[in-house]
């Protein structure tokens, strides 16, 4: 019973942090289950996958309401992403626990540094200037930017290159039970000329579809136990909703240093655990 409470609280924490800094939350759920609750890492990744799916759906609801998601583009990019995800989900069954710990540790440290840099130096990650409309691509669209109060049009470019990078995002998603938004959003923004807000919204929706692929495979592998998953998912949803309200009141600059510390610490612990230096 106490474990259920821990899972619920961990879910709230992951959902809250995830919605504030724009990540799925899976990157926090896996270390908590694997290191604190000593759950087998394959089971932790399966649980995380369902949490990522729930977070994605709750975010998609908000973004669909605001017409921020480019559904056609999401579906096109989802084809290579799901192929990568299937490859990642299959690969996970052949990897030993220690190897997964090391890969996850590296991914967490890199993600932490990237998230820190993105929030610390936002001017370096500004969206590209949108090109004029009129190229006639079926993915060209527009959205209403609430901050500027204007309708913003954009042309989508380099769909092939963006799709190729999506394979990598899908692979890591399937392998580690994370969303893969950290790869997809910059790729869509910088390579495909999609505005940052649309990239984030479209990526959120895509993460849900990618998570379906991995979730199904994990489920039939027996890596999803509802007794662990359900309290975490409910917690994540509560945290994500709370985070969306809290995000307007929290000063991200102060928080981002803490996030970096948390990510580096988690990454280092997973890394050391993988090499057998840290034992629980």
């Amino acid at each position, binding site marked *: 019973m106490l474990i259920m409470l821990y899972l619920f609280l961990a879910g709230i924490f992951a959902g809250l942090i995830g919605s504030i800094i724009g990540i799925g939350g899976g990157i926090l759920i896996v270390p908590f289950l694997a290191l604190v609750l000593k759950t087998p890492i394959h089971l932790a990744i399966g649980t995380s996958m*369902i949490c990522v799916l729930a977070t994605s759906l709750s975010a998609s609801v908000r973004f669909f309401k605001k017409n921020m998601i480019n559904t056609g583009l999401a579906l096109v990019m989802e084809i290579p992403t799901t192929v990568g995800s299937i490859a990642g989900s299959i690969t996970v069954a052949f990897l030993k626990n220690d190897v997964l710990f090391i890969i996850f540790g590296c991914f967490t440290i890199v993600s932490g540094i990237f998230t820190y840099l993105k929030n610390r130096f936002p001017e370096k990650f500004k969206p590209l200037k949108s090109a004029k409309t009129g190229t006639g691509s079926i993915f060209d669209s527009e959205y209403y930017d609430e901050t500027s109060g204007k309708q913003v049009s954009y042309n989508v470019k380099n769909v092939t290159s963006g799709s190729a990078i999506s394979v990598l995002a899908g692979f890591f998603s399937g392998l580690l039970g994370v969303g893969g938004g950290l790869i997809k959003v910059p790729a869509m923004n910088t390579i495909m000329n999609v505005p940052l807000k649309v990239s984030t919204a479209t990526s959120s929706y895509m993460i849900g579809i990618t998570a379906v692929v991995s979730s199904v495979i994990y489920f039939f592998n*027996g890596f999803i*136990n509802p007794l662990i998953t359900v*309290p975490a998912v409910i917690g994540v949803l509560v945290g994500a909703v709370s985070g969306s309200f809290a995000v307007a009141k929290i000063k991200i600059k102060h928080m981002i240093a803490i996030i970096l510390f948390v990510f580096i610490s988690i990454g280092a612990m997973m890394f050391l655990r993988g090499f057998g230096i840290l034992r629980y």
Partner: protein
Amino acid sequence: MAYSDTDSKMNNNIKNQKRENSPDVKNRLNRYMYVVIISGLAFAVFLLIAGFFINIAGSGSPADYKNYEQSTLQPEKLSIIFNSTSASALSLFEYAGIFCLILVPVAGIICAAVFFACNKKYNLMIIAICVLAILILSAVIGFMK
């Protein structure tokens, strides 16, 4: 006169193309997707919460995960997944909730495919069907592996 007819047809085609690519059409799709996803999510959450409380009321405990045995992927072995938890039938609602959660994005893609078909955007409809096919393929791999 013939030139005028051709011109008129071209104008109609351009108008149709503009209508199909117009923000109104895309916004309409987003509205449908919103309804599908929020309905599915609400139903899944209802099942998950119901299952959660049923488990608390029963004897369900996640302590068994330490002895969790990895089951194989054959459909008949699904019973192993149930038997590997102490809750068994008590977890039925939770399993249904998780399945429902997994099915929500699938329902969204079906909705998009139907919408694209109705609006004669056949290229996007084919893409949506391809994504659906890959999802089905993943389920098959899940069973067969």
